């Protein structure tokens, strides 16, 4: 088990290193000179050179990359002498636009994205799995066809259309919900909930549709399994056959997909956050892309990659707990 864990962690480190390398190449080497951007208009060649030296852009690629990497783990110092600025680990650099540390910007926005992700995940899991089960039980009947229609609709509507349509319907026409604005949970939980409700629904609908189909297909397939027939042949009641022999094998694959989906959603929902004006990681990414704020783009990209890799590993570990066949180290 420990060996397995170490293996996984080592793999994770390699993947993250490669992600760092690629993002570094894309954002610092291939994109326009950051020094020119930092300098702004009315800039002299000397000023640009000065900035380049401060940012370390005059040094060779591998040195720069090494400084960036060590900054992540040990922090780094920008500039020299009296101008020196200490950037504590994990240092992702400073925003070209606001001069804030990128790490701080991400940490500030992470709770918003987490709230959006958790709420949406709860919604889509509940709705998707329930609808999928109903569909499987009533296979071929009206309920199944009705749900199939709904999932098709849910999968086909793009998020931004859904977001705008919901906003128009619930906020403008029916006036059931206030226009989205940031309310801390401690201040007014009801307002807080209302505020997040629309983003949750928007994000949940597409995913719920996918989970519905997945659950339905898995359950129907599992019910055809020989071991389900064996369970019936033993004289078990339908409840026990379902709960014990059909549901567990059918829902296990959903854990895998859920882990991945949830992890990538934690890294920010770009469109939804932007439409609803939520100040999360997704909006941060969108803003920094439009302004070509490279350190921020890079920070957000690394975070997303990190979350997906960690999510993947958590799923793998969970799997060893759920499925005895992949349990490692068990004797034959």
């Amino acid at each position, binding site marked *: 088990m420990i060996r397995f864990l170490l293996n996984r962690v080592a793999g994770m480190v390699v993947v993250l290193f490669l992600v760092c390398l690629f993002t570094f190449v894309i954002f610092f080497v291939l994109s326009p000179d950051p020094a020119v951007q930092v300098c702004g208009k009315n800039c002299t060649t000397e000023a640009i050179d000065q900035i380049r030296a401060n940012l370390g852009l005059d040094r060779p690629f591998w040195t720069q990359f090494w400084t960036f990497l060590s900054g992540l783990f040990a922090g780094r110092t920008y500039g020299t002498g009296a101008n020196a600025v200490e950037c504590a680990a994990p240092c992702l650099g400073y925003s070209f636009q606001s001069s804030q540390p990128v790490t701080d910007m991400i940490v500030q926005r992470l709770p918003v994205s987490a709230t959006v992700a958790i709420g949406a995940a709860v919604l889509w899991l509940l709705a998707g799995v329930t609808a999928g089960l109903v569909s499987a039980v009533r296979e071929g009947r009206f309920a199944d066809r009705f749900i199939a229609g709904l999932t098709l609709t849910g999968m086909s509507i793009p998020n931004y259309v859904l977001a705008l349509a919901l906003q128009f319907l619930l906020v403008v026409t029916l006036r059931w919900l206030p226009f989205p604005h940031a309310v801390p949970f401690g201040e007014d939980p009801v307002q807080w909930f209302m505020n997040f409700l629309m983003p949750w629904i928007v994000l949940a609908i597409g995913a719920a549709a996918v989970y519905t189909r997945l659950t339905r297909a898995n359950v129907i397939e599992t019910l055809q*399994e*020989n*071991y389900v*027939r*064996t*369970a*019936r*042949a*033993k*004289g*078990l*009641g339908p409840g*026990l056959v379902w709960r*014990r*022999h059909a549901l*567990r*094998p059918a829902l*296990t694959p959903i854990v895998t997909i859920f882990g991945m989906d949830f992890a990538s959603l934690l890294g920010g929902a770009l469109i939804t956050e932007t439409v609803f004006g939520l100040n999360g990681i997704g909006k941060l990414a969108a803003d920094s892309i439009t302004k070509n704020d490279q350190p921020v783009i890079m920070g957000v990209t690394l975070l997303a990659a990190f979350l997906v890799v960690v999510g993947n590993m958590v799923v793998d570990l969970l799997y060893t707990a759920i*499925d*005895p*066949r992949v349990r490692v180290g*068990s*004797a*034959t």
Partner: protein
Amino acid sequence: MSEALLRVRGLTVAFPTASGPGEVVKALDLDLDRGGSLGIVGESGSGKSMTSLAIMGLLPKGATRSGSIEFAGTELTALRERAMRAVRGDRIAMVFQDPLSSLNPYYTVGTQIAEAYQAHRRGVTRRQARRVAIAAMERVHIEDAARRVDHYPHQFSGGMRQRVMIAMTLSMEPELIIADEPTTALDVTVQAQILDLLAEIRADTGAGLILITHDLAVVSEVADRIVVMRDGDLVESGTAERIFTDPREPYTRMLLEAVPRIDDEIGLLRTTAGEAES
């Protein structure tokens, strides 16, 4: 003659097809005495498996059955699902062809043996059910049963898995065991062991046995009486001895001749596709 355990009359199983109902078992009659053993022989598609599922009341969705199935004096076709459930596993137990796919990979074999016992005996504690599971595993000669009871199906070999399946049926002390191709998925050397085990259990418990197989060699070792089926029809029935020494129907003869023998010319395999077809 002893008392009849199973008496099947005019059993017909049909599936709806595009061109009306397709009958996979046609007006079949079967008889099995208490403690007797019956071999149902036929090629795949002959309706032998559907016959066993019809007796268990486990036909796939859409299939219809008609006719009479009398088990120990009870008409099974008249039973409601709930009453049928009490018969299944407890009084009639079934061993399936592929023990790997027939056991749930997510649960220990002990759990899977014990759950049948718990379903049929009210107020049984887990401990008791576990003891029954261990005892059943010992009875099918699984060594170190007290430890193996907590293992998962994938940790057993094919033959051992089939022993687990048989242990599962044994724990309930059924009056009838239906074994559907119990040795087909196994190595030849293991096949003989499983057949011996089935014969031993029948002798010990006095349970009736229906052995369904495409392999006449298998049936010759275990069954007293044999029914030969083809395309849902009963071709011939009689004592095992008579079927083997004096087959009356051409199809039965073809089946017998299709069993490879040690003195066969190399490369020669006879099929049943010859003149019996016409």
